[in-house]
């Protein structure tokens, strides 16, 4: 997994690529936690995410809980296969996916 962050006018764009699984999710969590204070809104670019397991979903849920109280969190460029995982787990209702 790789993460690329760009902050523009208070909106942090985090482009994630590769696999978000049990072994990589903690790194994503650390990156996001370290960024909450420095941004108003969060955009997660999922264009290059190949795989997400429940460990990754947990990170998304806690990020949503924090950012929901601030300027919000959006997911962009989610593939059909990843979207199905969000559907099955009810995450399509929790997350803002555009």
């Amino acid at each position: 997994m790789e993460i690329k962050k760009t902050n523009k006018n208070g909106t942090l764009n985090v482009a994630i690529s590769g696999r978000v699984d049990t072994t990589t999710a903690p790194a994503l969590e650390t990156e996001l936690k370290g960024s909450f204070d420095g941004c108003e809104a969060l955009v997660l670019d999922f264009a290059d995410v190949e795989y997400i397991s429940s460990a990754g979903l947990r990170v998304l849920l806690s990020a949503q809980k924090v950012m929901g109280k601030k300027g919000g969190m959006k997911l962009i460029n989610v593939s059909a296969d990843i979207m199905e995982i969000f559907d099955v787990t009810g995450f399509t209702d929790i997350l803002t996916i555009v």
Partner: protein
Amino acid sequence: MKKLEIKALTENLSEVLAFIDKELEAADCSMKTQMQIDIAVEEIFVNIANYAYSPEVGTAVITIDVTDDAFVIGFSDCGIPYDPLAKPDPDITLSAEERSIGGLGIYMVKKSMDDVIYEYRDGQNILTFKKDR
């Protein structure tokens, strides 16, 4: 049937998935099905790694059987008896604020696989799931 015997440690996850993926790829499994199976394998293996022998380290045995109409994957360990299927499903209708962090993994396995069976036999936890092709 192919079999992998491995120490139940989270750091061995990639080796477990490589073993499964090799068989799936040889059987021309679709990318989508492969991802669903990988997710299910990850959830079950990580569960065993985290809970079965803790704080000791034990062995997990993983098998894969590719038939004409399904992929059948089995896990066994000699750890403490634990039926992950007995866990209540998370309420997926709750809002983000109300949702709790746990229980998602096994729920994903139940939802994405076609059959999931748990049994405790001869001192072993045996979990088997099947994904139709």
